[in-house]
């Protein structure tokens, strides 16, 4: 099974590289076929990990980031807006997927051992929602990067800005759902829903980052640019936390 998973992983990685190249060359039909094939392969890798470990593929550094790449790949395949420019939201989504695949190169690709608490509902909801939140935040960042690449003045009424904001809010909602699952898990496992430790502070830091992104005042183009920058930084912070957790 390990061999099959590794083969599928390498093939999906290669297909996403080809998808990005086809997208940049504006071979849209080929890009779409490649992206759907890569998505299917990534799904097969996750299914393989899930079957072999008898737990959802969302916990370890490798499977967790592949799960994020899978959701982001699905969004890139089906939820991207039509654009005129060559390096649009879709291309940025593929770049982000490749970034995730690139990070997973540094994680062990062994089948994770089956663990008792990895089949516990609230633990699954906690990690699953975090993965979803990171995917949505990265997809939102793809919109905001594309928005920032437009010539000034960039208006908040721009469709890209609005879609980016929608996915960022969806990401915040998903992250908070994960936090709720986390506090139930903590309450049942440790008798309290808050602990004074770095993991809790990191989660709160991410929530604050979301709050800053949604509370930046002002209506002119400069403030829209600032909102975009914060919205791009939020998934970077989330990804950093995920990588630190995966490494530790």
């Amino acid at each position, binding site marked *: 099974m390990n061999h099959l998973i590794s083969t599928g992983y390498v093939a999906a990685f290669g297909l996403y590289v080809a998808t990005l190249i086809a997208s940049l060359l504006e071979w849209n039909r080929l890009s779409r076929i490649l992206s759907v094939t890569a998505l299917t392969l990534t799904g097969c890798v996750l299914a393989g990990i899930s079957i072999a470990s008898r737990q959802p593929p969302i916990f370890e550094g490798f499977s967790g980031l592949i799960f994020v790449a899978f959701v982001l790949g699905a969004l890139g395949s089906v939820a991207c807006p039509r654009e005129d420019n060559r390096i649009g939201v879709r291309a940025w989504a593929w770049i982000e997927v490749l970034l995730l695949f690139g990070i997973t190169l540094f994680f062990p690709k062994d089948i994770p051992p089956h*663990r008792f608490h990895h089949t516990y509902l609230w633990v699954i909801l906690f990690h699953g929602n975090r993965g979803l939140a990171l995917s949505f935040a990265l997809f939102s960042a793809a919109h905001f990067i594309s928005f920032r690449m437009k010539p000034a003045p960039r208006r908040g009424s721009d469709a890209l800005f*609005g879609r980016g904001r929608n996915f960022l809010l969806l990401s915040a*909602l998903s992250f*908070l759902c994960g936090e709720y699952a986390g506090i139930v898990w903590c309450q*049942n496992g440790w*008798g*309290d829903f*808050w602990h004074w*430790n770095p993991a809790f502070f990191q989660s709160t830091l991410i929530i604050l980052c979301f709050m800053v992104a949604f*509370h930046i005042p002002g209506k002119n183009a400069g403030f829209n640019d600032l909102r975009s920058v914060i919205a791009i930084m939020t998934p970077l912070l989330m990804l950093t936390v995920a990588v630190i957790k995966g490494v530790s």
Partner: protein
Amino acid sequence: MKRLNEYLASMQFTIGILLILMFWLAWGILLAESTAFREGFNLMNSVLAPEWFSRPEGLSSLLKFWFVGLCGVMAVLGINLIFCSWTKILKLMRNRQAASRLVMLIIHVVFGLVALGHFGSFVLGYRYENVHLKEGQTFTLPEGHAVTVKAIHGGENPVMFQSPRDQTAGTFDPEANYCEVALIYNGAEAAQGPAFFLKPFVYKDIQVTLKRFMSPKGKKHEKADGSKPVARLIVSRNPVKRVVFVLFPVMLAGIGLYLVMTWRTRPADK
């Protein structure tokens, strides 16, 4: 006075407080990662806030300053929330998009209550970590309560409580490794039931959480003479727990509703 009100209700003020909070938590991460303050954070996790300050071997001055500062910044955020809610959101409700503004107001109010509930959990009730009890032993709690371990079944620890080095792929049966506890009130048994891993025994506000099993000698992985293991419990009472657990989903539902209501609109700079 009007200018002060406007400033306290402004989004610039909100952003300033949020940035200070981010700095404060980043500092907290550095403190929690350092070996010098790890013991202090362990104490913060094992007992409630009044004891951090009253115990002679309590928190270091820096940790006290950090915690008080955190509470102070949160209090200022609360003031900003109140002013903002009154002077801005209520005013905007009279204009267009009233429904989504009302949902936004509810989200903010509920957020404030959840934060308040969080703070309440640091100071209200009690918490005893690392309560080691053998079969038949009793631990006395405040307000006339006591907890007794009536029986210990099994005694294996799930892999999640082992250090990464000791973790194996072995299966663990949570239904076969648990303890039966009884809650005593004024000398009479008030309730009894099992405490499993991740499925604590709860009676009213009092929760008995099974943290792990230990050998009678106190060593983690040793059962020296075949005698029954010791249950390591966390006994806690949090009167505001239910408030947080009920209001948090209300906040989530509000955000979800707001997202649906504003998905097609572009509110950013309209």
